[in-house]
């Protein structure tokens, strides 16, 4: 069986070289349909190069070197061979197999032996393989005669892989040697250690504060820590209050701004005046005693804007 397959391959080898470009071309389905309809007519044989022809002929000669007559017989058989019809009927991968056939046919026409018997044999063999009911083999289907060898090799690979993984794991374990992940809670030992450390710190801090307080010689009752806390509270409160007051002021400023917009009449001088004694526009007698109001009909006279240095300077410039 295996030997048969091999010979088949040998025969197909030269043909396969030719086949490749053709497959690329046959992407459009119309062409493919044409091929199916009349393989002989459509298949315009592409001329292989002289060199290739020579090669094919040589191979053919070699193949039939011992039985010259058979080759002739085969050549005669070709045109009306039943194989092609057979292949047309077949549906699985018909395009490819058809191409094969054509190729073979053409090859034969150029004086190269067509391997009719081989084709049938291949078909039979292939069908046989496909029909085969496979046992549940972990290695999967193996066509080779050396089934045992393959299995052995695979097993070896597997073992090697396993070994590699193991060594890697070992290495990792060695790297993590001694490395522990602490628990999420404080166990008794940790608590004890923290206690020891705390005691040490407290002892030291007490000694330090004692020494430094003695050094200062001031109020020993006022220990440093509490003083710090108290003063901190006080400063925090002041800053807090300051913040509140600031906010209030800002609010006032905002409202006053609003008011100003409402009373367009107020000019900067009025504001200035208002800042001195409350806000003038809010006074009841503001409109009555409107001497301070700016008269927009008049031009700004230097006398009217005595208080404002900026404006006066500008006007003088003009």
């Amino acid at each position, binding site marked *: 069986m295996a030997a048969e397959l091999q010979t088949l391959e040998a025969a197909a080898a030269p043909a396969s070289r030719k086949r490749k470009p053709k497959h690329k071309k046959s992407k459009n389905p119309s062409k493919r349909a044409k091929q199916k309809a009349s393989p002989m007519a459509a298949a315009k044989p592409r001329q292989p190069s002289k060199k290739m022809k020579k090669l094919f002929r040589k191979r053919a000669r070699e193949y039939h070197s011992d039985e010259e007559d058979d080759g002739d017989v085969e050549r005669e058989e070709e045109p009306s061979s039943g194989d092609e019809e057979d292949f047309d009927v077949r549906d699985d991968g018909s395009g490819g197999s058809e191409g094969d056939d054509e190729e073979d046919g053409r090859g034969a026409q150029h004086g190269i032996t067509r391997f009719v018997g081989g084709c049938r044999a291949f078909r039979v063999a292939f069908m046989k393989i496909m029909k085969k009911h496979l046992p549940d083999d972990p290695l999967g289907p193996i066509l080779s005669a050396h089934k045992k060898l393959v299995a052995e090799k695979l097993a070896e690979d597997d073992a090697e892989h396993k070994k590699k993984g193991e060594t890697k794991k070992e290495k990792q374990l060695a790297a993590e040697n001694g490395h522990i*992940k602490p628990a999420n809670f404080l166990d008794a030992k940790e608590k004890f250690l923290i206690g020891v*450390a705390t005691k040490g710190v407290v002892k030291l801090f007490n000694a330090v504060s004692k020494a430094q307080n003695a050094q200062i010689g001031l109020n020993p009752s006022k220990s440093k820590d509490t003083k710090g806390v108290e003063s901190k509270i006080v400063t925090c409160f002041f800053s807090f209050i300051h913040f509140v007051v600031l906010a209030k002021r800002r609010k006032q400023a905002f409202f006053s701004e609003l008011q100003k917009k409402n009373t367009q009449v107020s000019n900067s001088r009025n504001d200035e005046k208002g800042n001195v004694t409350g806000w003038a526009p809010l006074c009841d007698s503001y409109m009555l005693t409107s001497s301070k109001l700016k008269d927009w009909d008049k031009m700004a006279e230097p006398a009217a804007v005595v208080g404002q240095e900026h404006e006066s300077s500008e006007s003088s410039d003009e």
Partner: protein
Amino acid sequence: MARFKNKNKKAPVRPVKNQPSVDHITGQKIPKSFVFSRGKLPGPLRDLELDLRKLMLPHTALKLKEKKRNKLKDFLNVAGPMGVTHFLMISNPKSIPHLRVARTPQGPTITFEIHEYALAADIARSQARPSCPKELFSNSPLIVLSGFGSGGQHLKLTTIMFQNIFPAIDINTVKLSSCRRIVLLNYNNETKLIDFRHYFIRLQPIGVSQRIRKFVQKHEVPDLRNLQDVSDFVTKVNRASTKSAVRLQEIGPRMTLRLVKIEEGLCSGAVIFSEFGKEADDAHEEEDHED
């Protein structure tokens, strides 16, 4: 390796921080340290090395570059001019992590076996509210040694070594605000293991209500809606107290060490103390020479 794009430009010269080698208040020499590895280290141990460097801050080379071909002599040559007084070496012979603490340049060298260790990241992961402010590392930690008094000569030597590894504090001049970290070494007499822990110190006022503590420590604006007067806020629960509590939170690496060997010189010289017998000791020496 195109390190500089422009040839005309010179390599940026980093301003050298002039770290004083002598404390300007106490006048004592400030110990400085190198933390480096001997031989190839696996990932977690390299992390431990970095954690130890951080622990040894500020008087250590945080970004010390090591190369495979660096010998101990190289470090020693640099140590002299830099005023480095201590070496902490981590090695991993036969997959057993070791820590060696040595004084330069003469020694002695104390070799510990690291039984167990947890990285700072592991500890932070195990805590509900891990915190490790950066300013902690601007001052060197305090060191607390406990349980070392009972043992023999070797323990005394270890005590001295560790006491000198951080700058000594003078209780008359030290500022308590600069003492933010503590390294604890606790010797267990039964198991002969040394627990190495690193905490940070937090002071909390005692006898003050939660609200005021929050206000003072976190500067949160208090909610005064339900109070009649501001004085209520202060006087409600608070007793006048003069104390504040010391709270410790663990940071940094955690190690369980076992004292293995003490040598007279820097990773060489006569063996003063050995945990193992004579034969085992020889084997250990070989180990040390190979890295």
